[in-house]
């Protein structure tokens, strides 16, 4: 059974067809890279997979379960997590509170109006452990507003990982990072265990190629090329629309 199966997925904004009959099959534990020029519909595809957009036609299955009409928030409970291309965090709060919100999202106590969140030891411990993994434990109590861009990227990843996702969608996790930060994030992603399936959008080919097992090339909303690393890089169509000469 595939971790993620997409068949005949289409989406149009008015006359602009951003996703055209996309088929995608991601095996459990696979590292899949999605590439394509700007405007190819990569992020739209992510938004369709996570349910932030509703497709016009086609279907999405998560481990065999049809989730095409399942609301976005339920998909998180079914084991899907994502990071955003444009960092989307809670700027007024501390780093650890950001991660705690991610933990709380899947916990029934998110509806509790009576207990003191700061005194819930198990949340604090788990959030601290997640920050340990991304190397931010020492600044856990720092307000997010006082952190660097690279640190925020790692907070995003910590939030996604702390939800123990089965499928993790990473939207340009290396965008805007310095060389050192890129190396840190890469090591972080390489350390993610194999029971997590990862689909990643990335432009930065040096790091991305090293990471990916299979690559899908999107162009004008269509899947143009799909295959393993060498196949896709060698394909003349990849050179034409994406890599250049």
């Amino acid at each position, binding site marked *: 059974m595939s971790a993620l199966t997409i068949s005949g997925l289409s989406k149009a904004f008015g006359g602009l067809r951003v996703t055209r009959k996309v088929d995608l099959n991601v095996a459990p534990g696979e590292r899949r890279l999605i590439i394509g020029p700007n405007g190819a519909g990569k992020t739209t595809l992510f938004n369709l997979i996570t349910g932030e957009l509703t497709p016009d036609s086609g279907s999405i299955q998560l481990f065999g379960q049809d989730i095409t009409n399942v609301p976005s928030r339920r998909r998180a409970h079914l084991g899907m997590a994502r990071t955003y291309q444009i960092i989307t965090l*809670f700027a007024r709060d501390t780093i650890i509170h950001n991660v705690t919100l991610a933990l709380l999202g899947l916990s029934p*106590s998110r509806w509790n109006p009576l207990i003191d969140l700061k005194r819930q030891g198990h949340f604090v411990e788990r959030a601290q452990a997640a920050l340990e993994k991304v190397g931010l434990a020492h600044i856990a109590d720092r307000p997010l507003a006082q952190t660097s861009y690279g640190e925020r990227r790692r907070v995003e990843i910590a939030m996604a990982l702390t939800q123990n996702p089965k499928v993790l969608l990473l939207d340009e996790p290396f965008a805007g990072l310095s060389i050192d930060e890129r190396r840190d994030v890469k090591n972080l992603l390489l350390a993610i265990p194999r029971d997590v399936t990862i689909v990643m959008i990335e432009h930065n080919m040096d790091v991305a190629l090293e990471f990916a097992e299979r690559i899908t090339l999107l162009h004008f909303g269509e899947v143009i090329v799909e295959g393993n690393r060498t196949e896709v890089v060698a394909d003349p169509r990849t050179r034409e629309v994406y890599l250049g000469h």
Partner: protein
Amino acid sequence: MNLRVLALGAALVALVTLPYWMAGIYYINVSSQILFYAIFALGLNVLVGYAGLVSLGHAGLFGVSAYATGYMLQLGFGHPTAILVALVISMIAMAIFAALSLRSTGIGFIMITLALGEILWGLAYRWISLTGGDNGLSLKSRPAPFGFSLADANTFYYASLIIFLLSLAAMTVFVRSPLGAALKGTRDQPRRMNALGYHVWAIRFFACLFSGLLTSVSAILFVYYTQFISPQTLALTSSAEVLLMVISGGAGTLLGPVVGAGLVVVVKTVVSGFIERWNFLLGAIFVAIVILMPEGLVPGSVRLWRRVWGKRGRDAGAGVVASGAEAKS
């Protein structure tokens, strides 16, 4: 932190002993007014400060509760029944209000709540058989719970104080709870909250109900205080006044709305006795607050205090600048 506990303790002592040092019944009554308007402002602050949803129709809900109490008493029911029915009716009204207005956020939410508030005002004004129209409804008496007659100014003050402290405690617990944290999350990043597994609409709906409950409690105190309710209470200016309390004191803070309520009520009742153009004065104060302390009196004073007395001032200032930059992204 010790300073904070000390200040809050001193405030509490001052409130409890107020009838003994306050000069005259008139000022004790003004203090009661501040307390129930503070509960109203706390209720509106749940939406404005913590949910990021600005309502301009809360005076309408306030009116529903006040009219329900008055009408039940007129039908001959006792005080406990009247209060209970008023609470239930205003919660139902709030649920309908929320179901309609939560279809939108931002400007859309403001406009829908404004329209709903105006509809309720119109009903109070024209549905004469129920509301008495322009003449309003009069209440014959105040209740006497446990044998303490609330007809006495001091007793009414203490009843208001107890209910105010309970409301403030409820608010404190809620803000620190997981649901409170979730609500603040939906204010700052609704899209992210949804992706994290939260039901954003339902969280906002519960916030509306909590806000409605506090509004209703304050309205019941109000209607027993004035022993009279007329359509004017439901007018847009009343909604704007409470919004002014929340924003001037500090939206999204626990004590901001309380300080705001104090400011507005004092200017409206006490200062208006000396200055005929008190509306002008209130406007001028508001403009000064917006220019000097845009975050509101309570957080603004804390910031000034730290700048003058503590080294922490610089850190806090840096935080404000950085969060301002973040807000653009």
